[in-house]
């Protein structure tokens, strides 16, 4: 497969074609995952935002199925890594093997050399192995024995994991979590969807019958289109405000990183495009705040004791943060002006 640099993405798609292509992927996945349209669209949005997806939920709700369905719907290289406690970093990245014929070391690519990498049960591997993903996820390259190998475009890691309260798991390090654009939960299907699932999955696995409806080229074009989505200054400001708020929240020990801001906005672009808009709304940011930000932040010990989840903290921040449009104090705000946060009376010790 020809290596393609990160910037060599395809041309822009017209509005209608974009819509058709994206809808086709969503519809295809939905053949397998029933009644989870929002989750499926979010997964696609992460793909179009050039991010990585972390699916976290209890066992048996279809995490792996979603990952595989997304991979199969796109006709591109797909590799799967089953993370086990004895998995080694070289299994992920690749290894140099001595070739006796050429008397030279030869690089044998690992599982990450694909467009879509499905990492199943990622938190069952030891942190040592998990760390193998750090470089490739952020920089889209792999360095083995001092040689750097570029990865393909699109490149996406779809990882599934069980909540860390479950036994036999290693929590992901912060650096690793920060590299995932979004963390989504599958949730249990509703009664109707579960019934339909019993019918559909009773005889055969519908995953086998899933045919690709798209290919890497189209995905590249979709990504290029997403990049052109307009973001007004007010929206950018709102994204910054939102991330700043996590850094200043008293409940949080660690706020979201600048990378989070970037990925929040990228995902918002993708979501806007998927909804047929060529501009981002604060509504998109509000909807994405929990999936994009919640897994990156660490609550304080007090908040943990109070059993406040990061999801709750983020959504509360969203509900408290005023929109940037009425940045200059709204007349409907009856709270006293805080000014620049300085107390009016601040004498210093002489």
């Amino acid at each position, binding site marked *: 497969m020809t290596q393609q640099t990160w910037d060599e993405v395809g041309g822009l798609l017209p509005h209608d074609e974009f819509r058709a292509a994206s809808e086709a992927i969503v519809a295809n996945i939905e053949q397998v995952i029933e009644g989870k349209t929002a989750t499926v669209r979010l997964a696609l949005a992460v793909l179009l935002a050039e991010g990585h997806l972390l699916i976290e939920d209890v066992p048996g709700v279809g995490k792996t199925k979603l990952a595989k369905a997304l991979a199969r719907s796109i006709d591109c290289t797909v590799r799967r890594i089953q993370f086990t406690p004895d998995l080694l970093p070289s299994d992920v990245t690749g290894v140099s093997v001595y070739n006796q014929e050429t008397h030279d070391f030869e690089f044998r690519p690992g599982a990450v050399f694909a467009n879509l990498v499905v990492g199943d049960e990622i938190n069952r591997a030891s942190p040592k192995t998990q760390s193998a993903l750090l470089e490739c996820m952020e920089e889209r390259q792999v360095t083995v024995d001092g040689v750097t190998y570029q990865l393909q475009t699109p490149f996406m890691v779809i990882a599934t994991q069980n909540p860390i309260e479950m036994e036999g798991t290693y929590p992901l390090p912060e650096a690793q979590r920060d590299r995932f654009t979004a963390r989504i939960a599958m949730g249990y299907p509703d009664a109707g969807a579960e019934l339909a699932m019993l019918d559909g999955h009773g005889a055969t696995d519908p995953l086998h019958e899933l045919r690709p409806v798209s290919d890497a080229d189209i995905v590249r074009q979709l990504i290029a289109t997403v990049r052109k989505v307009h973001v007004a200054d007010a929206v950018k400001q709102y994204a910054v405000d939102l991330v700043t708020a996590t850094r200043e929240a008293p409940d949080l020990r660690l706020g979201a990183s600048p990378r989070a801001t970037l990925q929040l906005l990228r995902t918002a672009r993708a979501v806007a495009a998927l909804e047929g808009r060529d501009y981002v709304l604060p509504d998109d940011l509000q909807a994405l705040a929990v999936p994009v930000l919640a897994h990156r932040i660490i609550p304080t010990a007090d908040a943990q004791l109070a059993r406040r989840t990061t999801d709750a903290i983020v959504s509360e921040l969203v509900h408290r943060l005023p*929109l940037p449009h009425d940045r200059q104090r709204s007349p409907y705000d009856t709270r006293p002006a805080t000014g620049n946060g300085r107390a009016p009376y601040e004498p210093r010790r002489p």
Partner: protein
Amino acid sequence: MIASRNIGPVAAAATLLAAAPLSSIFETWTWLVQSAIAVAVVAGVAALTRLIRAPLWGQVLGMLAALGLALTWLFPSGGELLTFLPTPGTFGHFADLFTGSMQDMRSYGVEVPDTDPLLFITVLGVGGVAVLVDVLAVGLRRPALAGLPMLAIYSVPVAVYVDSVPPVPFVVGAAGYLWLLVTDNVDRVRRFGRRFTGDGRDVDVWEASPLAAAGRRLAVVGVAIAVALPLAVPGMTGGLLDTLGGGTGNGNGNGRAGAGGSSGRIDLFASLAGQLNQSEVADLVKVTTSEPSPFYLRYAVADELRPNGFQARNPSGRPVNQNLPDPTERAGPGVQQARYRATVEVTKSLSMSLMPVYAEPVRTEDLNGNWLYDPTQQVVFSNRDNSRGRKYSFDYIRSTYTPAALRAAPPLPAEHPLNRQQTATPGPVPEVEELVKGLVQGKRTDYDRVLAIYRHFSADNGFSYRLSTESGSSGEDIVNFLTNKVGYCQQYAAAMAWLVRSAGIPARVAFGFTNGNKQDGNTYTLTNLNLHAWTEVYFDGVGWVPFDATPSYGVPGSTRSAWAPDIDAPESITPDPGASGAAADPGASGGPTGPDNADRDTDSGLSLAGQTPAEQPPVWPWWTAGLLALLALLAVPALRRLALRRRRGGRAAGAAMTATPNEAAPVDGTRVVVVGPDANRARADAHAAWAELLDTLVDFRVRVDRTETPRTTADRLVRETLNEDTAAVGAVRLLGRAEERARYARDPLTGEPLAPALRAVRGALAARAGRRTRLFAALLPPSVLLRWRTTLADTSGRMVALTGRARYRLLRWNPRRLLADRAAR
């Protein structure tokens, strides 16, 4: 006992400050010096007894003893040991002083001179209060209670001096009390030990504790309310409303008749004008006299000429039930004196501390010792009683004079006290000086000069009577009257007195009643319209002689005399020395003219009565204007809202107008994205429509959330508020979409009918809201009020921040801080 060392002196000083109101009843400041000595002695002994840790009763005994010693030293009887150790004789002396003070209190009006009995009772009182304050504030640590004895001091001038004490001494006294309270509280707080700012930082020695700021503000507000509230309460003496409401004649003339209750500071001219202008006629006095044709009944005199006109001096005198001066001593050739008896019945409508009598009373009945007679002013007054509903009789001597007798009166010697006092004018007024010079030129005797001035006010000279003129008797008013030549009794009387004084002859203005036009035999019923003022001129050896310069046609019941004939009467009686026979009998001169005048005055009185309401400025325009102003004020928010809506509506309508060219613009089926001025305009239109929608929501009390996007807001409205109204649902979604695109998209929504959408939403909201909400939305739109409140809060917040910073900068130069720094170094 660090605290007591500090509070003791403060308590003593506060006592002295609280005594400040006494200054208004004393003529000099001797009382203060003596009180200060007594208080200082008491405070010193208190400090000493505390130094030796005496129990409280010991302190009290010590202070009382100290007060006794101080009094002995200040008011010696002569038989003391070492000038300050009291003997039994001293206490006898004290008892004498005490009874003497009672006597003095009765006989002197304010302001009282320095008599020993009065000073004694004052020093005793202030010293006693000092003891009490010290015990309460230092011994019992209840400084708030110490206010009661201080109040007792304050009540003294208030009691004797009905017309309320001037504000400055009160403020001084109140400041003393507050000082005591503050000192005590600072001491209490210091006992806690270290002071904190509240954010965990220690307060420096030089700093006022920020925690106390709220207390300080509360205290200031409390004091302000305590002072301002009584001012606004009607019915209290000197109430602000009382003053403002005076003279409007709002029906209840009874309480106001007599205008004020004091002999002291009453403005006689103002009350006279007020009474004459009353539209209601009230009977004030009924008088029966044995005199066939009496002269005016008089009750007050204004004999002090200040820059702002004639003022009443505080009268002083002896009780009326004692011997009164006998005017018959002044009888001489040409002066006829006869004794008559009169009974006066004052109705309930007249309440003042002066009693109307005929000049000059020699014996009274039915009047107790509270009523005093001032022989100089010839008025009966009281410092604590009032005339309301009284009935009394008195004998009086009526003096009549021949012009010859008055001519024969010698000029007053220059050193005569009256000459100094009663000819004083507050600085020469050139016009008056010139006029007087012209009038008296060539006149040899005082009487001729006075007569010349008296005649100047004749109708021939163009003077005419009219009640509705500016009142006042200051120099400027007098000149105005002399120029305009239109006025009524008070101007005539004051002008003549002024001119006579300018000629060097003592003169004053007397106030009283004419004989009126309701006569039943010897009984005259006098109303407020019969109130009158005239001039009295002093002739040496003769006494005060009345001259009434006011034209008799203007005054019902006017009376003339031989020495001051009616200058406007057709048959002008010239002062002829030969006609002394006719003048000798007051009945002869007063008789023919009296009934004649009374007849005419019935008409003029009627016409006056008919005239008065018309002349009086009507009250209703003020009420109407006030009501209109109030309505206008109330309408301001609604108008502001209307203007705002109109402006935004204009924008939205403009958007609808621009829709047409845009609609026509698409060429070849492709959508033309208009970017440029039109886009900006569409953006502004959408913003205006959205702002208007938010204001409407606030007006109809629908929640507005700053954290919601336009889309969420529209969704919420659809979900919660407009659930059935499909037109409104479409409209609100349109508005939300327009605002959303205006804010966040490359190209705003153009060509949408925003104004009708707004109307639809507003209509749906109004239909859903209750009547009360609708009414408020129309009359007092909450959106406008909220905006104003926010602005106010912001401004005040900024001000607080600014003042806080300024204060901090100033604190850098606080001397206490600099001293503390130096000490630390």
